[in-house]
């Protein structure tokens, strides 16, 4: 059985993984780059090892350094978190070769799902619906024209090795197809060193809905229902919730079955996510599988009542799942907001810096997964996410009201954040009604970027606070000068001035 876990990550996810390890009585090992000596995961862990300079490829992506730290500490397992090496098949293989348990799937599952064309083929073979389009790498331009004639415009050209929106091209008219294809191939080559692309039917009002699955080493696979992740900005999720306000119970169970089939198709082990694209008419298609824990896993944990990291570790230990599909149910509603160090009023420019003051939202139904503290400098080298705020409510309405309350309570000075932008989403009618697609942020641009009004009184309070602070700090530095300046203000005005004239 696993006794000591090295967490090959940083930030909130490293702390989150260590929390569950601690609850299981496991010893935790942190690794850190030179930029992260003061980071919370280093302070939280039982042990900590430096693995190199600030840039990720020299530290958090450095397999030798991480394996070295595991050997040195005697860790018998590595949890990769998300990002960094979490979907790296070579790393999974390397751990196996070194006799260290990689908490996640084996290289075969990662590779199969990592290549989009192979994944599409595998899904089709398993009866999981995929978006209509090519199933082979497209090299012949004539073949491309044929395919598009069959499925009809609009279509999306995507890079097989892709992710994060790179190498993607939307084609609305037939005549744009060939030029777009050429550009996508060239972009894909630049970004991923591989110009393989494929074509998919473009879904007009798409919803991004994903299913959490858990698979043990004994062939048992269950799904833990869906997460609705359609609130996105530049293909990055901003807000996630469960249950989805879109789908019906019937579609939910059907999609869940397909998600389980998808995982079984690659002999999956551990926690994973099957992403679907869903149309307004509730047609759903496999999009991709993430072979790791997701940033948005907490909403599932809250509504289903399962600690996903603990389940990952139990699975890695070879234990069978402790529940069957029919034991699981969704209780209430959960929403997650991601809070970034960025400036929404300046095109979401990243805003690293020193946290001066922080007030964390607390109380009933609020979960806060973060890692920064007062005086901590958020480094410029890594992801700008500061924390995730998760609220639960008996109903969707209550969980929105609670998120609004939590965002109100959350104060952070020193870096700019997306808090006020998120508040405006919570107030948007489309969001409140649960009627939104992945175009939500674009469609609501005007509303989402308008700043709140601050009347004369509110404005004056800001002036007054600055003024009083200025006077008080002046009094500390120049007590003499301060007394002179203030003398005329005090009630005992005459007497003091006389004293000063002496």
């Amino acid at each position, binding site marked *: 059985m696993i006794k000591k876990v090295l967490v090959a990550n940083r930030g909130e996810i490293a702390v989150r993984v260590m929390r569950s390890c601690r609850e299981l009585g496991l010893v935790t090992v942190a690794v850190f780059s030179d930029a992260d000596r003061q980071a919370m995961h280093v302070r939280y862990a039982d042990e900590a090892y430096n693995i190199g300079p600030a840039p990720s490829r020299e530290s958090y992506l450095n397999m030798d350094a991480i394996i070295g730290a595991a050997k040195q500490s005697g860790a018998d397992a590595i949890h990769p978190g998300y990002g960094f090496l979490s979907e790296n098949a070579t790393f999974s293989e390397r751990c196996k070769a070194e006799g260290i348990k990689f908490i996640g799937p084996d290289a075969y599952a990662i590779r199969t799902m990592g290549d989009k064309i192979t994944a599409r083929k595998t899904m089709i073979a398993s009866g999981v619906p995929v978006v209509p389009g090519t199933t082979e790498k497209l090299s012949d331009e004539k073949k491309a024209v044929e395919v598009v004639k069959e499925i009809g415009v609009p279509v999306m050209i995507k890079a097989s090795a892709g992710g994060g929106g790179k190498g993607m091209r939307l084609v609305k008219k037939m005549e744009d197809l060939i030029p777009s294809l050429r550009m996508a191939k060239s972009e894909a080559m630049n970004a991923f060193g591989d110009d393989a692309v494929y074509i998919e039917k473009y879904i007009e009002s798409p919803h991004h809905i994903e299913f959490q699955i858990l698979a043990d080493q004994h062939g048992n696979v269950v799904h833990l229902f869906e997460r609705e992740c359609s609130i996105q900005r530049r293909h990055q999720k901003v807000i996630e919730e469960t249950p989805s306000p879109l789908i019906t119970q019937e579609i939910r169970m059907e999609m869940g079955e397909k998600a389980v089939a998808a995982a079984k198709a690659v002999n999956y082990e551990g926690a994973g996510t099957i992403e679907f694209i869903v149309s307004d008419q509730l047609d759903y298609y496999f999009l991709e599988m993430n072979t790791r824990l997701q940033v948005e896993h907490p909403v599932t944990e809250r509504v289903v009542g399962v600690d996903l990291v603990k389940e990952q570790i139990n699975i890695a230990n070879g234990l069978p799942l402790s529940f069957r599909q029919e034991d699981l149910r969704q209780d209430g509603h959960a929403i997650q907001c991601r809070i970034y160090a960025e400036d929404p009023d300046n095109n979401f420019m990243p805003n690293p810096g020193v946290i001066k*003051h922080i007030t964390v939202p607390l109380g009933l139904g609020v979960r806060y997964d973060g890692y920064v503290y007062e005086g901590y400098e958020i480094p*410029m080298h*890594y*992801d700008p996410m500061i924390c995730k705020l998760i609220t639960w409510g008996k109903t969707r309405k209550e969980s929105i009201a609670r998120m609004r309350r939590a965002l109100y309570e959350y104060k952070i000075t020193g870096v700019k954040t997306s808090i006020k932008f998120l508040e405006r989403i919570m107030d948007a009618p489309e969001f409140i009604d649960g009627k939104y697609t992945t175009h939500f942020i674009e469609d609501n641009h005007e509303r989402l970027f308008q700043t709140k009004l601050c009347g004369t*009184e*509110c*404005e004056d*309070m800001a002036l*007054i606070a600055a003024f*009083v602070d200025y006077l008080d700090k002046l009094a500390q530095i120049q007590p003499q000068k301060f007394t002179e300046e203030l003398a005329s203000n005090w009630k005992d005005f005459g007497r003091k001035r006389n004293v000063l004239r002496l």
Partner: protein
Amino acid sequence: MAYEISNGHRTAKIELLNRVGHKALIKVDDIKYDLDIVEVENGVYSIIYNGQSYNVELIRGESSKKFIVNTFAKSFNIEVIDAESKYIANRNKGMEMEGSNQVISPMPGKIVKIPVTVGEVVTTGQTLIVVEAMKMQSEFKATGDKIVQAILVKEGDTVDSHQVMIKLESINSGEEK
């Protein structure tokens, strides 16, 4: 003594009329505020005015006169203006550089690319410099037709927030120099 105080879009007269403990009488332009004001945490003020409870958080700036102040609704850049500030402001007026003739980094980051050279003529929208922070690359572009006057950083350099990276000169405004 009355001070002037500015929040960017408005300059007000402000005066402390009286203060006993955490009670203060402060006049802002023509309004007298009878307040209960106390610094509850470092840089965090609790103000009660007419029963209303306000929380105001501020970050002290590079000088003791400059603040970033957050109210619930909005964030302000506030500056206390005394005789000294006024003098400096007046003195600088003549020699102040046009904002758009400097490329300033709004955040700490790393210089990824500088696709221009000193003396080069650049046109509106042309990329002058690419800065990376937190896995995101930001391109800074020319806002007019200009000449690159000086490049103060090089590729691979780390820059701080508010650091001037490139200086430019407008082409069709000879009278400025």
